[in-house]
């Protein structure tokens, strides 16, 4: 069994065990008057455990164990904390703007984490399969190089094929001008590049031998550009989820702090 499958199996096992345990505890002690306080503090402890993974990342020079182990614990704890959150809510729909905002924040943080987990397990393999490792920061420069090469080929001083120039102006100029088809690449669709290549293929009927060579070179540039777009889309997705997950975590922590203050400020004789 490889590492991911093992981690997944352990994760599922831990989640099922935690769910059964938590539900049993909820059934047994759910009616206690301080139930909300108990689950609330447990939830806070879980959230604290989740956030210190970020601190671990900031201290790589300390012998604090491998980040891989930390991430696994983070994932298991994340699932368990989500369950605890539902129990804390007593499986009811939150009400009031503050509670709703807090619930939304929690849901978005959990949801983005799960999306991130899915991306980090699925997208790297797809990137590797497509081949041609590209550094994300260099994609823009490489794309610009391809754009220049395609322009020179279709519109340069040596270009004398009007129909190729026309095709470039109508179909390819926009394609080479910037990153394209983020969502389609994420969905593993090859439709845009196939359409462009089919269009190019159509032109071969009118092309001389020299022009066919030019069309072949243009097709190669299109494939390269498509490959760059693919890498950009997937690598961007692997980064973007963190831009949701981490800032919202800070927001969630602020709201959680306020929530605790409000609970203790206004709970009165509920304790």
């Amino acid at each position, binding site marked *: 069994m490889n590492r991911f499958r093992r981690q997944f199996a352990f994760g599922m096992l831990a989640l099922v065990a935690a769910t059964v345990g938590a539900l049993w505890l909820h059934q047994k002690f759910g009616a206690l008057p301080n139930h909300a306080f108990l689950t609330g503090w447990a939830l806070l402890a879980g959230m604290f455990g989740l956030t210190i993974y970020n601190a671990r990342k900031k201290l*790589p*020079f300390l012998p*604090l164990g491998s*980040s*891989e182990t930390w991430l696994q614990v983070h994932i298991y704890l994340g699932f368990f904390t989500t369950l605890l959150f539902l129990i804390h809510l007593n499986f009811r729909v939150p009400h009031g703007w503050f509670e709703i905002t807090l619930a939304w924040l929690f849901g978005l943080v959990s949801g983005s984490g799960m999306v991130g987990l899915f991306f980090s397990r699925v997208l*790297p393999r797809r990137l590797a399969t497509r081949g041609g490792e590209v550094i*994300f920061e260099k994609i823009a420069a490489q794309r610009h190089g391809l754009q220049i090469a395609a322009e020179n080929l279709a519109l340069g001083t040596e270009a004398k094929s009007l129909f190729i120039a026309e095709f470039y102006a109508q179909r390819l100029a926009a394609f080479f001008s910037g990153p394209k088809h983020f969502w389609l690449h994420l969905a593993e669709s090859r439709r845009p590049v196939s359409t462009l290549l089919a269009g190019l293929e159509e032109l071969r009927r009118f092309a001389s031998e020299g022009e066919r060579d030019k069309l072949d070179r243009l097709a190669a540039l299109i494939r390269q550009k498509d490959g760059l777009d693919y890498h950009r889309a997937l690598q961007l997705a692997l*980064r973007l989820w963190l831009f949701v997950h981490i800032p919202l975590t800070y927001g969630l922590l602020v709201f959680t702090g306020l929530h605790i203050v409000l609970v203790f400020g206004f709970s009165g004789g509920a304790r």
Partner: protein
Amino acid sequence: MPFAPTMLERPQRWDAAFGAEMTDATVARLLATAPFSQMAAEKFPKRTPLCEILGNDTRVLRFRKGEIMVRQGDYGTSAFLILNGTARVVLKPDLAPALLGRQAPGKKGVFRTLAQLWNGSRPAEYLARQKPGQAAGLGARQDADKVRVFLQDIPRVLDHHRTAEMFAGEFFGEIAALSRMARTSTIFADSDDTELLEIRWQGLRDLMKYDDALRAHINRIYRERALASYLRATPLFQHLDKAQLDRVAEAVEFATYGDYDWSGEYKRLAQSGSVRPEKEPVIVGEGDYPNGIVLLRAGFARVSQKFGGGERTLNYIGAGQIFGLEEIAHNWRTKGSAVSFQFSLRAIGYTHLLIVPTQVMEEIVLPSLPKNELPPPVQPAADHFDSAPSASGSQPPVARPESVGAEMLEFLTENRFFNGTATMVIDLDRCTRCDDCVRACAATHDNNPRFLRHGPSAGRLMIANACMHCADPVCMIGCPTGAIHRESFAGQVVINPETCIGCKACFTNCPYDAIRMVEVRDAKGEFLVDQEMRPIAKATKCDLCVENHGGPACERACPHGALGRINLNHLDALSKWLKL
């Protein structure tokens, strides 16, 4: 327009002499000096006469008292002959690392570890203003274009260390040069104007080849100093008593294959895309009669099999591994159904090996082995051209693990990555390109990352541009100050920034582009410059977080277990890691 090729003389071996200052008079003087005066010049072939070897493969070096000639632990390509004056070899205890221009081994303390929290705000490549050789007891001086490092307090060294004097006419460094092993002792000049003849490897090889006395002398030294202990440590000979071991040692033959300066040649071939197994020197040919087992002492060799019109790599073997035991054991056990060598063995780079003749194996070694330690009988392959490597026929000496595919093996071999003992391998199937490894490296090295998360890849594996801490560290050859060194014997290769003079020797030698030259800055972020306003450069590379607790930060920082520091000398570690 007619084609007009550029004509030039075909490059020859001695186009560039080892020592530019070698004159006819110097050569004449050497020819009158022992042991060259006792060599029979007529035994040398016309294309490599003795006088040309001396004129082109040697150079005369002069040292002042206290100047270090060779350091323990360094790698070198030359042997030395004392022409004039005296030298002193340090026996016990070894000189302190600081006296050899090295940093003292050890981990960071609690304060230095925690100080990394705020050291990240320093300017990039910050270096306190220091001069090379500022370590206590060590000095440095510039002679012409060479930097010489000297011991400042020789009486103290003599008081605290057992040493032995060496005189004119004595050789040293020949074993380390020939076997490409680390030098075992430090030797410094014991008189002013000590004169040494440095003989580069190619010259030493030819002198040994054509002069029986020198060959016998070096073989004797080798057998006395290195061979007995090596054989004793080899599991194959563990059942032999002392007398048997002595007989084996007496019969062992030494051989070297390949190019000593393989890294430069390899770089050239790699750039031209003409790295081919067929061009590598054959140690043992497939189908040859097995006349001895081959023990690899240093370097690497490719195990290959004929495939179509070329050679297919089945595995590579490194120091300590054995080739040919299966065939010889088979022939010994099953008289009458003798098999030839089933695979070819070719030197990759430079290979130093020992050959134990078949007769000695059959008479002494094989009878001593318990049955369960004998290899299984060989099953010759019916058709090598159509069969998969292991589908029929014998297994190669060290079978390729299943998880390492043929393509991956070719990739590791072609790029010489098997040299790495801590190669940064990235599994692209797991890597999310988050750069946590790079950030961790930077945070651990005062905000200066020491590798690039980029490099050649094959299938799901990428070998990043990070120091591999090679088994054969060609970067360590030629460092004038000893700044680049192993942390401990066979340990990590590290650079001491305090004694690095930025000469680029290691940077040029490294065939993997794992060393970078950086221009250092002061606390304000200004470049440090010399008197001529040229920026001061230092060599930097991955030090495997040798001073940090917990191991390499890059490996620990990867959230997906996609990065490993793997010993590629054998495939077992890689195979295990890939299966995880």
